[in-house]
């Protein structure tokens, strides 16, 4: 059971590439509360940003734990939590296929266009 659990969160390593001892499960380890990822909006107008993770028995507790753990110094005004197992991450091996095609579409960036200096507010 634990073996399965440890394999399904965002820090997961493809099985064929894992080394010894990484996903070691031990039968007497208490299952523990699920892991949650925490996202915090530090002030109005900004995106929620990933700040870390924590354990909680349910979503309610996860939000409260996030408040207690990650906003002790007034770091936030809004909290999102999501159970880590629900996060699907892209595979770094796909990085080429995912991101490189965008590299040659420089025309998507405003700096691509060389316009006369007299032109204002564009």
């Amino acid at each position, binding site marked *: 059971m634990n073996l399965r659990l440890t394999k399904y969160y965002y820090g997961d390593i493809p099985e064929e590439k894992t080394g010894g001892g990484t996903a070691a499960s031990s039968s007497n380890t208490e299952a523990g509360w699920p892991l949650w990822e925490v996202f915090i909006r530090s002030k109005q107008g900004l995106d929620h940003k990933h700040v870390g993770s924590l*354990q909680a028995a349910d979503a309610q507790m996860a939000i409260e734990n996030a408040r207690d753990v990650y906003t002790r110094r007034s770091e936030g005004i809004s909290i999102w939590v999501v159970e880590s197992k629900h996060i699907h991450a892209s595979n770094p091996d796909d990085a080429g296929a995912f991101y490189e095609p965008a590299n040659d579409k420089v025309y998507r960036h405003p700096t691509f266009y060389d316009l006369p200096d007299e032109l204002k507010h564009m």
Partner: protein
Amino acid sequence: MYEPDNDDAASLIHYLLYLGDNALVLSQRNSAWCGHGPVLEQDIAITNISLDLIGQARSFYQYAASLEGKEVTEDTLAYLRGERAYYNCLLLELPNGDWGHTILRQFFFSVFQQQLYKQLLPSKDSTIAAIAEKSLKEVAYHVRWSSEWVIRLGDGTEESQARMEKALVALWAYTGEFFQPAEYELAAAREGIGPVVAALQPGWWQQVQEVLAEATLQAPEQGKTWMQTGGKTGRHTEHMGYLLAEMQYLQRAYPGATW
């Protein structure tokens, strides 16, 4: 601005000490969990509550000290009064027991504190009203956090329910004291500084009942339990002396030193 005459001033100071002592003594108890909680996240959570409470205590003591004048400070009030001059409710000085006891006590007290502080908002004493306003935000969170834990533990496993039932029996007899006014509370009510505390009971009971019901815990029958009192007038349990001896040790051992 409210300006008390001499007798009233003494009574107001008592009242402030009562409010401060409640917060400090529970903070002292809760802080023993720091480093020993059942899971890291909750270790942090209960310490946040301890920090809120110690902050509240300091606000009340600082105000009391300013009324006393002379050499009185928040620290002389906290560290140089003996057990007979402490006015906190007995419930708050009881040993922590297990996490269930700690949670249930927090719940009983936080609900009471919330009722009380709400009624302090219109206080004629603007300093008290301001402290209450600031503290209410903290207390609202304490109520929420402790309510949820009471529900979780009550409606959790067989063991957790049994533990909560035990805690309920042990602590219930100490909840009546909240609503039995001491002389300084009656005076505060007369002066429009604080509420009539007996009138806070129905609201408290209502909220406690709701949470206990959701926690599948049997609420004690009202009026059936003999209520322990005395803390508000400085008649404490035997636990209090040890609590103060520990807390005040350095100030007592090195009189006059600055830390």
